[in-house]
């Protein structure tokens, strides 16, 4: 394994636990020569995930990431700011729609905008995504329409978009199950040649699932062109990441023979650069790579969750200060960009997207009752045809009574 790829391999468990944040460190200090086991003794080490933007917006050099940031100019930064602002506005609007009773549930992504936009804007459009249900920022990057984004959460369908048109599978509800799918897809496309890669997106909780661990075994054994992208948002509903792993998550892939990187998931430039670095290597035939984006879920697990029961205000406040959008704005400001103007422009795009999302509710059709029999198999078998007819007959028999009453 490349030593440069295992940059996270000596990091302390400290900063993936929900404790008071470590002060901003001006680099990527590591504790050379330590093993994962001895990291328990290094809990106070000042090491941090790879990053290029400090919380105050200062740009720091990074030998691994900088080569993948050469194309970044003010326009690119502005576009990233716009993307992050738009998905935050979409997310906020969806939460509001749930509160208004228009959606049954919504899983907010607030706080994870840099992780999702950094990944989404670094990949090629044909790279195939197998994600969890919180990756609506990636769906935005793939051009998913507002109605397609909402229909599942409105209970109108079990999937919103055509996976092949968007190169993005239907988001997975079973934790970690999609990692196998990404690996299998990568094995099949890899065998055909070409540069397409597959991407498995999952969270810190999924790291405890057998499927994720099995998927890493398969990926390593067959050198599958797959990127494992773990958004460590610190919580699996109420359970802190320390319950899933006593070492940084990015330590574990080494045991499978998979190189890993640990990156500040609230630094959109770092995520973008790390993704490009990893994707380039995977395209070149290096096999799977694991990328942990250390971020934080600022909102609840879903609109049904009450996070005040399991985390305190001080912790939340410390992560609000590390807000990924704020950080990029500070960076632009430091560069002398007209930040108020850019912020207003981003807000305008966000409002337009939110308005479109709101309007899309009316576009989502109520499915016809008999459609519940559609697509069980590729052709309907007689037993289902019989049940369909029975349902229709029942509905027809009830219709006059309802009309009369």
């Amino acid at each position, binding site marked *: 394994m490349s030593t440069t790829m295992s940059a996270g391999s000596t990091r302390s468990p400290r900063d993936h636990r929900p404790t008071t944040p470590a002060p901003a460190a001006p680099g990527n200090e590591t504790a050379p020569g330590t093993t994962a086991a001895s990291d328990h003794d290094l809990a106070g080490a000042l090491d941090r995930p790879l990053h290029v933007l400090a919380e105050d917006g200062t740009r720091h050099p990074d030998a691994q990431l900088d080569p993948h940031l050469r194309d970044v100019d003010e326009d690119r930064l502005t576009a990233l700011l716009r993307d992050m602002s738009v998905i935050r506005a979409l997310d906020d609007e969806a939460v509001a729609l749930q509160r208004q009773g228009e959606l049954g549930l919504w899983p907010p992504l607030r706080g994870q905008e840099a992780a999702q936009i950094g990944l989404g804007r670094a990949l090629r459009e044909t790279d195939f995504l197998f994600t969890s249900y919180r990756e609506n920022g990636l769906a935005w990057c793939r051009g998913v329409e507002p109605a397609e984004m909402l229909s599942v959460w409105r209970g109108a*369908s079990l999937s919103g978009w055509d996976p092949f048109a968007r190169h993005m599978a239907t988001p997975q509800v079973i934790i970690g199950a999609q990692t196998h799918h990404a690996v*299998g897809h990568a*094995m*099949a496309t890899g065998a055909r040649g070409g540069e397409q890669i597959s991407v498995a997106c999952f969270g810190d909780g999924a790291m405890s699932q057998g499927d994720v661990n099995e998927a890493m075994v398969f990926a390593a054994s067959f050198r599958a062109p797959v990127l494992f992208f773990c958004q460590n948002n610190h919580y699996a509903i109420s359970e802190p990441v320390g319950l899933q792993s006593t070492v940084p998550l990015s330590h574990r892939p080494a045991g499978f023979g998979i190189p890993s990187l640990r990156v500040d998931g609230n630094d959109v430039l770092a995520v973008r650069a790390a993704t490009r670095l990893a994707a380039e290597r995977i395209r070149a035939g290096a096999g799977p790579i694991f990328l942990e984006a250390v971020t934080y879920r600022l909102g609840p697990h879903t609109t049904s969750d009450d996070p005040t029961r399991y985390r305190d205000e001080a912790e939340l406040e410390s992560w609000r200060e590390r807000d990924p959008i704020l950080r990029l704005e500070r960076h632009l400001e430091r560069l002398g960009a007209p930040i108020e103007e850019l912020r207003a422009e981003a807000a305008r795009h966000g409002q337009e997207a939110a308005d479109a999302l709101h309007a899309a509710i009316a576009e989502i059709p109520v499915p016809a009752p008999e459609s519940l029999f559609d697509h069980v*198999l*590729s052709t309907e078998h007689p037993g289902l045809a019989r049940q369909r007819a029975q349902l229709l007959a029942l509905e027809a028999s009830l219709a006059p009574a309802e009309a009369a009453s």
Partner: protein
Amino acid sequence: MSATSGAPVVGTATSTGTMTMAAALNTALGDSLAADEDVLLIGEDIGTLGGVFRITDGLKDRFGARRVIDSPLAESGIVGTAVGMAYAGMRPVCEIQFDGFVFPAVDQLVTQVARLHYRTGGRVRMPLVIRIPFGGGIGAVEHHSESPEAYFAHTPGLRVVTVADPQDAYSTMRAAIDCDDPVVLLEPKRRYWGKGEVDTSVTADLSSARLLRGGRDATLVAYGPLAVTALEAAVAAEDDGIDLEVIDLRSLSPVDRDTVAASVRRTGRLVVAHEAPGTVSLASEVITCVIEDCFEHLEAAPERVTGYDVPYPPAALEEHHLPGIDRILDAVDRTLGRRSSREAA
């Protein structure tokens, strides 16, 4: 045993003569691999070793390690990886080494394989075949003799089929691989070495039961390993002047209730036999279908002849657990109002 239902395909009929069920399955897999480059096999020990039952013997040499894939030892991984391959347009055939090992894969089968077509409104097809050697009778250790079919038959979105003889095995395997739906294909491991004629031009319909033998007095429904037993029971019953009609159910989901009901309308009596425990079983389902469809034609209460409601017992007890000719005929006697073991007791 008689040939399968289904007409020969148009074209060159290549009768390959007499072979074992294992050889018929091997031939079917090889023919499918040769016919369609999207077909691939994945499972434990299926490559270099040729599978613990040698069903994939020689296929890795013929088609290469990318199409006959020795997988890591992880059943959820086998099926989950196959899901991803199907997303990419492949038609994977997964081997689960033994029936009792399928349970780690049940999550992927139930939450993914069975639902992806439905979930995506028909956009994503899952043309997987999940091969499972199943059933007892080989004196094996625990977890090597299970009959898990009801779990899968209870899951909408899966086709569940069994095979009973070499011709059926060949034709059904080809049809399962060609099918755009996920198919759990249960192979009766104790019949792997039984021989029969195989004509590779004969096709099979995955949804259909088949009439193995016509008879007037009672309908005997079985599948998988007990199809042969049922035919043997019918021959034995002739000594008592009883004429049994025998149906191989073949498709456990969907159940071909029309074929069974048509038979019961002729005979008025029904006995269903399988190795799996009888509670909430295929026997329960078949009998319910008959009661719904042709209750007025029943002349006696239907009978279930199944494995007992116990975990699969140690090998020394399996002959008592598995339905054999005597238990089947005992049930036939009851449906015919003849003296059975229960009156004797």
